[in-house]
């Protein structure tokens, strides 16, 4: 059953991160709750809503940015203690706003994620996990890739400390807290001199590694409690999906997907469970960083072993800003459940089951309700307007002072504080394109994108900004100059970028928000040479055993860290931290599915790929980097003659589909004018699928051109390693794509790859 929720706006704070808002538990079911929210200015505030007016409970002074918030309490009591993390400290507040804990962890990294379980405190920096009991350090763990979230199974149910880390390399790492504790004790006892335990020792605490497609970004206990046994954890991924994993002490964890997404490129930022309709079943609330908020009805949410059954989407809402945190509860009106949402810019709004629009009120024939609602909002509007008037006066006074300052002083500097721009560039695997998202705290005036690499910058349909492509002066070395002039009240802009492998460089984005004094913030993004490769798990990449690999081997006086740094420059999504020992990494091309295996250690590195072009690009790139550092490299390259044909075969289904689409499209207009009765079934089918054909073409414009570009590269590289230059033959090759019969197209193309062209053989 679908539900209908309507939006009510409540309040505004500073910029917020994910997991920085909570609803305090109320005394009874369906009673109004209080919101606690912490922002980037370091302000923690709590408020309730009374008759549409905001009632402040407490508000702290600004300080370092609040990175996380968690509710806690001693085991067995109501969880109404508020814990926040800022930089390297953790603070605890009572629900009245009284500071009862101020704990400096003395950690080297600032806290990125936090979880509280009774008296146990779990903190994660970029890659280090730490656990504390009663503010006493009881162990740490070094993850091999960035940690995005941490959670522990409820201690009262499992009777032990089991922590789950969400890591950027697509792995959920399950840690045994007790094991860590004992290790910690041992190391302390043995060497009081060196306090840090070597990471290899702690690896025995790593109970399981759960590999999932896509990197997990958010964790939450299933049903808010972890299920009956307290061992089910929900996770959201960077491609917008939600799954559940069951962690038992001894058997390997099982997991399954719960809910998918309809929009590519959005990562899950928040998860919560709440019974919105009062039917006794908990609904799954999912918020994502593209502004979408969805409510699902999920059967047997906590049971990861249950049959794969797609969740039923009950409600979808899209707000124009990233969702930071979403919580189910009661806030606006007693007795009405709602989803309380905080967004990146700090807006707090509710999606309530209470009907607020005039039509509904009329339909219920409750004129009085509509009247009071109207009066409430009117009163709120008045209060807001008055507040704004005051602010405006203050601002105009300050503005005058600012302008006056510009006139007077000679050595006076005019400074504008750092502008917070939330930017994310993520590879959408299905489209082999990047999605660049830019978000500012206030409305954006314009965005300028400059690139020194050839990229296609595509507009996204849901943008309302006016796009303008400027001419690029070759002398200035620009390959793309695009401006986006945003319409009123746009705080967020999405764009799609299509890159070409082998072309690397920088993308500069200048974002100008609509705030006086006007400033533009520059963000520099890197386009890697192998930009269309994504991290893959070993099992997936190596599933097809008989890939004809070409091998590139490098030897030289380089350290492991150096090689890692070079690879970071060549491939996307690698963490900055070099691995501690020789490693093997797996990548897969999102465009055609060929794989790249990088095994490297000190002084030696081996790269295997079934795509010659990939090897070619890597070779060029690494030798350039090594020359830059004047490191001598011994390069040897073994090309498998079959790999060209193999890559072509991998690419072919896509190529065939696009070539067919291209042909159908060309036929469509001509067919429409003909008499339908006289047409062959083949053509009638094309006519019937018209909408679909046009839609597919619209969704991936110029896809065939892109594939042809790849085909050309592959063709040239394929023969390059044999010392042949086939550039002159490219037109014939492409001609076949457009003209040769589809049924024999593969054979025709393979023929091109098989024989060296006779005129070049000599």
């Amino acid at each position: 059953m679908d539900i209908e929720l309507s939006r009510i706006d409540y309040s505004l704070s500073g910029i917020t991160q994910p997991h920085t808002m909570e609803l305090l538990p109320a005394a009874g079911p369906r009673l109004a709750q209080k919101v606690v929210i912490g922002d980037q200015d370091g302000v923690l505030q709590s408020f309730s809503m009374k008759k549409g007016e905001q009632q402040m409970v407490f508000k702290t002074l600004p300080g370092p940015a609040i990175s996380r918030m968690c509710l806690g309490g001693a085991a067995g009591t109501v969880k109404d203690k508020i814990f926040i993390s800022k930089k390297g400290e953790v603070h605890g507040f009572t629900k009245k706003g009284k500071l009862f804990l101020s704990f400096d962890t003395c950690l080297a990294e600032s806290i990125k994620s936090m979880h509280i379980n009774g008296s146990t405190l779990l903190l994660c920096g970029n890659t280090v996990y730490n656990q504390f009991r009663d503010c006493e350090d009881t162990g740490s763990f070094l993850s091999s890739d960035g940690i995005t979230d941490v959670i522990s199974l409820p201690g009262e149910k499992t009777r032990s400390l089991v922590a789950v880390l969400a890591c950027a390399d697509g792995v959920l790492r399950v840690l045994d807290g007790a094991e860590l504790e004992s290790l910690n004790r041992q190391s302390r006892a043995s060497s009081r001199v060196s306090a840090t335990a070597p990471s290899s020792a702690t690896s025995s605490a790593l109970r399981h590694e759960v590999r999932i497609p896509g990197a997990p970004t958010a964790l939450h206990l299933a049903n808010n409690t972890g299920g009956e046994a307290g061992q089910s954890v929900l996770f959201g991924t960077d491609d917008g999906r939600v799954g559940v994993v069951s962690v038992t002490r001894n058997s390997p964890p099982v997991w399954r997907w719960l809910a998918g997404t309809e929009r590519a490129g959005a990562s899950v930022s928040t998860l919560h469970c709440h019974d919105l309709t009062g039917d006794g079943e908990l609904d799954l609330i999912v918020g994502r960083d593209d502004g979408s908020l969805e409510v699902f009805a999920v059967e047997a949410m906590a049971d990861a072993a249950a049959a794969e059954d797609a969740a039923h989407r009950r409600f979808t809402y899209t707000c124009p800003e990233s969702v930071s945190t979403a919580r189910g509860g009661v806030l606006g009106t007693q007795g009405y459940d709602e989803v309380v949402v905080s967004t990146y810019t700090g807006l707090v709004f509710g999606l309530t089951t209470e009907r607020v629009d005039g039509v509904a009120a009329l339909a219920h024939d409750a004129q009085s309700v509509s009247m009071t609602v109207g009066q409430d909002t009117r009163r709120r509007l008045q209060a807001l307007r008055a507040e704004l008037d005051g602010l405006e006066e203050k601002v105009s006074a300050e503005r005058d002072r600012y302008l006056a300052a510009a006139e007077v002083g000679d050595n006076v500097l005019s400074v504008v504080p750092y502008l917070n721009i939330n930017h994310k560039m993520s590879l959408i695997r299905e489209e082999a394109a990047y999605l660049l998202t830019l978000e500012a705290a206030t409305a954006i005036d314009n965005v300028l994108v400059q690139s020194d690499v050839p990229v296609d910058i595509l507009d996204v349909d849901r943008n309302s900004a006016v796009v303008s492509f400027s001419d690029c002066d070759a002398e200035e070395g620009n390959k793309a100059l695009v401006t986006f002039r945003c319409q009123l009240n746009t705080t967020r802009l999405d764009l799609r970028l299509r890159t070409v492998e082998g072309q690397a460089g920088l993308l500069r984005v200048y974002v100008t928000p609509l705030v006086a004094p006007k400033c533009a913030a520059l963000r520099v993004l890197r386009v890697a040479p192998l930009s269309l490769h994504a991290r893959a798990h070993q099992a997936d990449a190596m599933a097809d055993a008989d890939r004809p690999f070409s091998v590139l081997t490098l030897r030289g006086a380089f350290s492991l860290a150096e090689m890692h740094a070079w690879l970071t420059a060549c491939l996307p999504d690698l963490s900055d931290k070099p691995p501690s020992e020789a490693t093997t990494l797996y990548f897969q091309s999102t465009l055609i599915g060929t794989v790249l295996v990088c095994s490297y250690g000190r002084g030696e590195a081996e790269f295997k790929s079934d795509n010659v072009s990939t090897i070619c690009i890597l070779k060029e790139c690494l030798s350039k980097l090594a020359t830059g550092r004047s490191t001598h490299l011994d390069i040897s390259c073994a090309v498998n003659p079959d790999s060209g044909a193999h890559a072509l075969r991998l690419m072919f289904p896509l190529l065939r589909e696009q070539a067919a689409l291209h042909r159908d499209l060309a036929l469509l207009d001509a067919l429409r004018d003909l008499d339908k009765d006289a047409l062959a079934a083949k053509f009638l089918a094309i006519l019937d699928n018209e909408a679909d054909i046009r839609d597919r073409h619209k969704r991936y414009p110029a896809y065939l051109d892109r594939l042809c570009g790849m085909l050309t590269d592959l063709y040239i590289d394929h023969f390059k390693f044999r010392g042949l230059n086939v550039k002159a033959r490219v037109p014939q090759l492409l001609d076949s794509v457009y003209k040769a019969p589809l049924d024999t197209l593969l054979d025709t193309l393979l023929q091109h790859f098989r024989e060296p062209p006779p005129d070049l053989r000599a």
Partner: protein
Amino acid sequence: MAVPVFTLQLNHKLLPGRVTIGKYDGSHSCLTAATTADKVLIHSPHRRLGTTSQMSGAATWSQVNKEISLLSVNRNVSALCAGRLHPDLEQDILVVGTPSSVLAYNVENNKDLFYKEVADGANIIVVGHLSGYENPLALVGGNCSIQGFDYKGNDPYWTVSGDNVRSLALLDYDLDGENELIVGSDDFDLRVFKEDVMVGETSETEVATILAPLRGSKMAYALANGTVGVYNKLHRVWRVKSKNRAVSVLSYDIDGDGVEELVTGWSNGKVDARNSRTGEVVFKDNFNNSVAGLADGDYRLEGRSQLICCSVDGEVRGYDSSRLGSLMEGNAHQDAVRDLLQKKQALLMELRNYESNTRSSSGAAQTNMNAGMIPAKTSLQTTVSINMGNKSKGPHVELCLTTNNETIIRAVLVFAEGIFAGETHVVHPRDEELTSSLKVALFPPRDVPLDIHIKALVGLPRTEQFHVFELTRHLPRFSMYNLISASAPLPEELPQNFVSFFISERIQRVVLWINQNFLLSSELEPESGGGSLSLSFSALRDGSLLSISMHPAGRMAIATSNMTLAGDLVQSLASFLNLSNLQVTAEFPDELAHLGEWLEKVANLQEVRIQLGADLAHRAGLIRNLIVRAEDARLLPDLTSMREWHTQLLEVNDDLINSYNIRCSNHNELLEILKQINLTIQKAARLRVGQNKADVVNLSRSALQSNNLHSLLKIVRTGEA
């Protein structure tokens, strides 16, 4: 989001922009649209059943849908309009335009009113009363010309326009109770004609694709670059720009407050209504496909009209004000709260900016390179000058930006409409070439006054945050002409092409006009001695020479080989000096020679065309003959001769296709030449002002009709017959 009062599906693909509504029986509205299959679709939901006597004739009732009838045009329908063309009938007449003809059709009687070949094509048609004409006219805008037909098919109205006509509107521009004609054409201009005199003219930044009358002297317009807005007379009230293109614009009172809103149908399927005074959106809805057209008519027989929207895939939705009111209220409050919160956020940010500014200015704060920091006294100077260019860059107008200290200019965004491919031009130098000054080259393609908005990103070297300096500069109308200094040697030969005229004004006033309209390195000082004025300019676009001279007695001469430029100068000068009438002598021997050639060519082409027509008829006869014979042979069955006939048939068919292709290219050539002739007449008219201008058009027309070249040349030269 609004709830439609009705929806229906036509199941035909419609052409965007070609939708109209007519009461063909005098009382019931029928939606009429052009389909992609070269047909005109008439949807009559209130058709009385049983009146099948209409079955004969051009229109056929659809077998599938009893409410739809189709009229085959068999040519691309380029314009469609229904209106009361017949002064005695209480019924609307449908006027259909194609690239070569106009058809007026009485739908009720299924009868053609008239069918006319129009050589200039019909890009747009409006039907209505025009001041000075007793009968309603169907005004047809084609290539550079506008023709007005009455119900008999006579064309009492004819005038020329600066370029291909894209949009027309009938509007009571001067509020005298009579309609004037507003014309939008490919040269980005909007012109207002009262009878055949042009009473107003303004230049837009793109082609005006749609014009629609609003109440009073207000008019809505839409441009090809996605702008829609409202003009009151020729003053722009407001405009908005979207990345989509407007397909249709209509005035309709959607919120029931008694004032019409501007309803726009967009190419992405969006429909919105905006307050005609402020541009505020009061209503919106979305279609899955591009909107094909908007109309207002009473489709529910409830005595008042609905807003009817059609999409290109044939979906129709109707809206009225009845369901809008209650829907808007609840949301409006929520929207207001949201807006206020957003405003608060912006104000808080600004306040924070100032506060941190005072904090760091007091000296205690550490210098953070990430924060945008510049000396408070930084200012940005701009100069606009003419740069004669070098090998890689031609002569251009140069905009030079300089800061007054060590800060650098990271990038410059120049926003101006109509001079770049997009709306902005960006200059972003390499990192190592960043300095405190930056040059932007501008190449205005047309002689219009321009406002250019500049955003410069200024900061200290290697910062991540830049201050944005915003400023606006004005480029005078004739900025692409460089004054040749008096000392430079003038070309010897006397200019052959010039206009000369008398004005009773002092030289000082003309000097003032030159100072205002040309880009000069320093202002000209009017000579006090009462000497004559003589200035020479070189055009940056093609290097040609322009000289302006004035004798103290008031005789002025403008010498240039570019007739359009001469016209622009005369018009600009006349409006500066408030001249109501001006007659000139124009000597443009080259243009006149062309005119002669063209007229001759037209005669030839028309002859060829008649020949080809006869040829075509002959071949068609042959084919008919051959088919009969082949059929006979087949029935006999004499296969040998059947094959023979079919071989011959194939040959004749090939010939037919060939001659059709010749006819086509012949036709295109004719169109091009006719356009040139129209243009020349228009240029000649623009050399004059006021009544003299209208005279040129009218006299030229009669000279053309009588094919009197001699008289035509004289008209162009002297402005008199």
